[in-house]
Every structure is written in C-alpha cells, then in structure tokens.
C-alpha cells in the first residue's frame, strides 16, 4: 500500500511552523521535502516529521547558533507557557512511572534552568524572546535553550572582572551572586549542582564558548572551551 504523503500545509500544522519556514528548511537541507515525479509541490512523510521532531538536541542547538522559527511544540515565548508545559512534563514523567525520588528533582532542575532564562533576559532579549523546551520521557532527556544574553554578559554587570565564558560558568554554578543585583538572587544553578551531586542525574550546560558537565553523583565541575560560540544558553538534562 502506498504511504500517505502529507501536504506542506499539513506538515506546517503538525510541526507548528510557517510554510515559508518549511520551504527554507527544504532548501537548506534541514528538513527535505519529497516531490512527486515531475511535480513541484512539496510533500512529507509522517515518519520523517516524527524523526525530525525527536532530535531535540539538534533542533535546540541549531536555534542557539542561528535565529529561526521553532516548532511551536517546543517554543515557550513567555514564562507562563513554560510553567504550563513544565507541569505537563511532570504529569508525563509520573505516568511513565518515574520514581518519586527523582521526578521532583528533574522537574525542579528543568524549572530553575528555564526560569533563569526568563528572569535574566526579561526586557533584554537580543533578538528572539523565550526558550526552547523539549523532553522525551522514553529517552529520559530534557533539553532547554535560549537566545538570551548568556551567563558572561549577565554576570559581568555585577562581577565586571569576569572576562571569559569559562570563568562565568564557574561562578554561576558555585557562588551565590546574582546578575540581577541589587536584587539578592541567583540560587538556581547552585541548586542544580547540589541536586546532581547527590542523584543519578547529569547535566550539560553551554553558554558562549564554555561547556560545563555535571556528572551524576559527582560534585566536581567539568568546564571546557568549545571551538564555537553560541547565543544564550543550551542545556541537556539526562536522568
């Protein structure tokens, strides 16, 4: 039996992006459409759309390197949308049978990382506001990203001596200091570190050209420099 092909309008509806975005993705190879023999119209297989949307890391990371439209299922334009989807993730994790010893911690870590993006960039987003927020309960993975100012730029307002992204990440995860001074804030990433040091959860966090890894049940910070620079922050949580 011949597989049913979806029109570009149907594919746009499913992914929650515009027709122009799908045409652009087809041209640049990000999501290649199918053309019937001799035809000019673009078609898509459901399976290809599912596969595309399942690669959370690729979609989120590409968004931090180049501004583009995000599939609506992953895009939280404001904090209210993020809170709602976080509660939805909590329900999905509970339904998947995730232990009560881990579930609140994964949700709290994702919440602190996502809220950080909104708290530190409110009114200051350089181009596109909001966060990418995707999760896959079967892969036990949560991915977050933003196109905000990034950790160095945020922290250097209160710690002007900070010059590199690597130093900024170290301070962000170890010292109680807030980029929102004079407000006394900035506990979120310290919380994240504490949770991971005592639990089977791991975290990859990237801002600018600095990459930080927190390994499960380990209090050490592993920070390295990357070859390239990204806009804002990019996070992978695995549990």
């Amino acid at each position, binding site marked *: 039996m011949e597989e049913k092909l979806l029109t570009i309008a149907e594919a746009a509806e499913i992914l929650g992006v515009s027709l122009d975005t799908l045409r652009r993705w087809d041209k640049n190879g990000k999501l290649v459409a199918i053309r019937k023999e001799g035809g000019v119209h673009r078609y898509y297989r459901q399976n290809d759309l599912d596969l595309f949307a399942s690669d959370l890391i690729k979609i989120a990371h590409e968004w931090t390197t180049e501004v583009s439209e995000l599939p609506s299922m992953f895009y939280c334009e404001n904090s209210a949308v993020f809170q709602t989807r976080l509660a939805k993730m909590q329900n999905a994790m509970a339904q998947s049978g995730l232990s*009560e010893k881990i579930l609140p911690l994964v949700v709290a870590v994702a919440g602190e990382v996502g809220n950080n993006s909104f708290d530190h960039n409110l009114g200051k987003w350089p181009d596109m506001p909001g966060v990418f927020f995707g999760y896959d309960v079967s892969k036990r993975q949560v991915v977050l990203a933003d196109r905000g100012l990034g950790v160095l730029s945020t922290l250097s307002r209160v710690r002007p001596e900070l010059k590199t992204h690597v130093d900024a990440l170290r301070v962000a995860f170890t010292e109680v200091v807030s980029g929102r001074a004079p407000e006394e804030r900035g506990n979120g990433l310290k919380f994240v570190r504490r949770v991971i040091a005592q639990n089977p959860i791991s975290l990859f966090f990237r801002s600018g050209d600095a990459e930080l890894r927190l390994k499960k049940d380990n209090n050490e910070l592993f920070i390295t420099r990357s070859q390239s620079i990204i806009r804002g922050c990019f996070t992978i949580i695995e549990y």
Partner: protein
Amino acid sequence: MHIKLKKFGTTLISRQSGKEAFLAFQSTIVDIVKDENVEIDFDGVITFSPSWGDEFLTPLLNQFGNRLVLFPTNNPSVKITIKLLEDINKRSFKTKQPE
C-alpha cells in the same frame, strides 16, 4: 495557623508564582494571633524549587522567625531547597520533629 502549600499548586517553581503566593497569603497573616506558630505543610506538593521557596519562605522566616515551623517531608526537592535556602540566608528553619 496551618498552611497547606498544595493550595498554591503542586508544581511550585517560579519566582513570580512564589511572589504571588506570598502576596495572596498576606491577607491571611492578619488573622494570626500573637505567639501563634505558622506551620508549613508540604504534603501534596510534587515539585518545589529555591526560586519559589525564596519568594515565599524566606520573607516568612524574616517575619516570624522561630514561629515559622516546617513540617517534615520525604520530598527530595523540598529537602534540598530548604537546605540551600538555609545556607544562603545563613539562618535555619525550625522544623517539626516527626511523631
């Protein structure tokens, strides 16, 4: 006075909602009589974070000191949050001993 935090939701995460909860609670505070304890019950809360806790519990701790009493819970997100807030504020919360 006994406060069931789940009345504010089961996912207590953001600073905004913590602040809103604290402001909403201010209208109840006037009913608290002198020397009365303010008991915080985490039963039914699924996820708790330092952002929410810092906006709700820290000002209550400043306001009521040792009259603010936290009920024991096994929820790991509550436990780690409370310890972190104590370290940051350099001040301990009074907790009710399990019976």
